[in-house]
């Protein structure tokens, strides 16, 4: 019996080690390949050059254009999704009847279940042409359309997590506010949202990191032109799109060109790692605020 218990324990440890080893392996490969890359290209060059043309004859290895493309699409998505997602969360929490909330929340979560390739196509084939009617000089591939569609995709993340943290605010705070003659709107935005702010911040951080890493939508609808621009009407290339482009193409495996994707990947990983740490820190910092 005791041996059986021991065996089960060992099996469980093995299971958890799968995730740890995978993470460690990814970081290791990313780092090793990136180090090899930087032995050939200077890191100063990498962060200051404003052109990214590793696949052309005249080669430049500046990450800034890819970074600007990534940040541009992410910013658009966040600017669109945060107000909307938060308003929906407040509505569901403060205004809607419990029956309506129970009905709407699952539907909203379906948005997160739609395959991103479908979103990408939706951006390219529907959103871009629609936007072109309003903005005539909008490029066929642009940052705006996939940014907005990405925003729609991350709304459920923000709404769901924000609503959870609004719901966790003690009822007594809401009563205190109503008891002083505050309206629903005042109660929601002056008491509930600030009280739930740590959870809301975490939801936004997770949404940002989701948008940074999103690949399919931008690969389909944003184009493949690395350009240092913050003009949403233009075609841009994100870090993820570039990685897809190279790893799917016919670039030889051990060439310098191929190693660029590890440097690009590590850059992205650094960003999402910082964001995740930030969300972890926020969560632990503000825990047990009411007790």
């Amino acid at each position: 019996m005791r041996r059986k218990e021991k065996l089960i324990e060992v099996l469980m440890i093995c299971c958890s080690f799968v995730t740890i080893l995978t993470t460690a392996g990814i970081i290791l490969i990313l780092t090793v390949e990136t180090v090899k890359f930087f032995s050939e290209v200077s890191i100063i060059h990498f962060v200051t050059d404003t052109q990214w043309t590793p696949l052309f004859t005249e080669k430049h290895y500046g990450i800034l254009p890819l970074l600007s493309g990534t940040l541009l699409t992410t910013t658009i998505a966040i600017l669109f999704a945060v107000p909307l997602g938060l308003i929906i969360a407040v509505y569901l929490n403060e205004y809607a009847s419990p029956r309506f909330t129970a009905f709407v929340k699952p539907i909203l979560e379906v948005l997160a279940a739609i395959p991103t390739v479908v979103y990408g196509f939706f951006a390219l084939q529907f959103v871009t042409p629609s936007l072109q009617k309003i903005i005539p000089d909008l490029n066929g591939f642009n940052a705006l359309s996939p940014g907005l569609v990405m925003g729609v995709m991350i709304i459920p993340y923000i709404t769901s997590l924000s609503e959870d943290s609004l719901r966790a605010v003690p009822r007594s705070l809401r009563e205190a506010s109503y008891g002083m003659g505050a309206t629903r709107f005042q109660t929601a935005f002056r008491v509930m949202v600030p009280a739930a702010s740590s959870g809301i911040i975490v939801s936004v951080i997770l949404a940002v990191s989701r948008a940074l890493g999103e690949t399919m939508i931008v690969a389909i609808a944003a184009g493949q032109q690395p350009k240092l621009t913050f003009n949403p009407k233009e075609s841009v290339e994100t870090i993820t799109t570039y990685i897809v482009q190279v790893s799917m193409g016919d670039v030889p495996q051990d060439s310098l060109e191929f190693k660029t994707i590890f440097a690009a990947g590590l850059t992205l990983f650094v960003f999402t790692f910082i964001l995740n740490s930030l969300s972890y820190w926020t969560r632990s910092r503000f825990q047990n605020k009411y007790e």
Partner: protein
Amino acid sequence: MFKLETRNANLWYGEKQALKNISIGIEPNSVTSFIGPSGCGKSTLLRCFNRMNDLIENTKIKGEFLLDNTDIYDMDVYELRKKVGMVFQKPNPFPKSIFENVAYGLRIVGGKDRNEIKDKVELSLKNAALWDEVNGILNKPALSLSGGQQQRLCIARTLAIEPTVVLMDEPASALDPISTSKIEDLIYELKQKFTIVIVTHNMQQAARISNKTAFFYLGELIEFDNTDKMFTNPQNERTQNYVTGRFG
């Protein structure tokens, strides 16, 4: 003339009737205690006066509820709650600074003048006998105060909106004896300016601080009279049994 009055008040939570035909009149500038065993309807009645029961689904209310002879259901509910403030059982300061807690009520009515807000915050904290303890630390989080201080902060917050009535739902039940006695002294002071209705489980507290006491049992108002008479010579046997501790 009564400050607060109900006539034939009935209230149901779903199928369950929580208040049965209650008619009571509360005099201005007095302290009235509501006593009775748990589930007797005393808190429910208290929450009728500022329509907090509106927030609970499936609540049906019948009868008349008057503030200064005006039906409170003819008034704007937000205006009503500014006139009839409430202090809750557990201290529930907002997770904001001490200053912002008291300023909250002023801000929601659109108060912008910084000096005016500052003066009113100070005055309210003084009225709540908290000023000497928090003067100089107004920007600290309200949740860093002790439980008793938090409760007086909640009273200050309520006073800042200048109500005429203050409803208190077992305001000292979560506090230690010293904090409790501070709250009781405060209630005695506040009577000069406000009409106070307090729900309490503590019989000595009711006897100490209130002018009149109402005894509730199973949703009915059993007896309502001057406090000393209620505790020394109650007319109803159930009141007698309850105040002497024989049941409840």
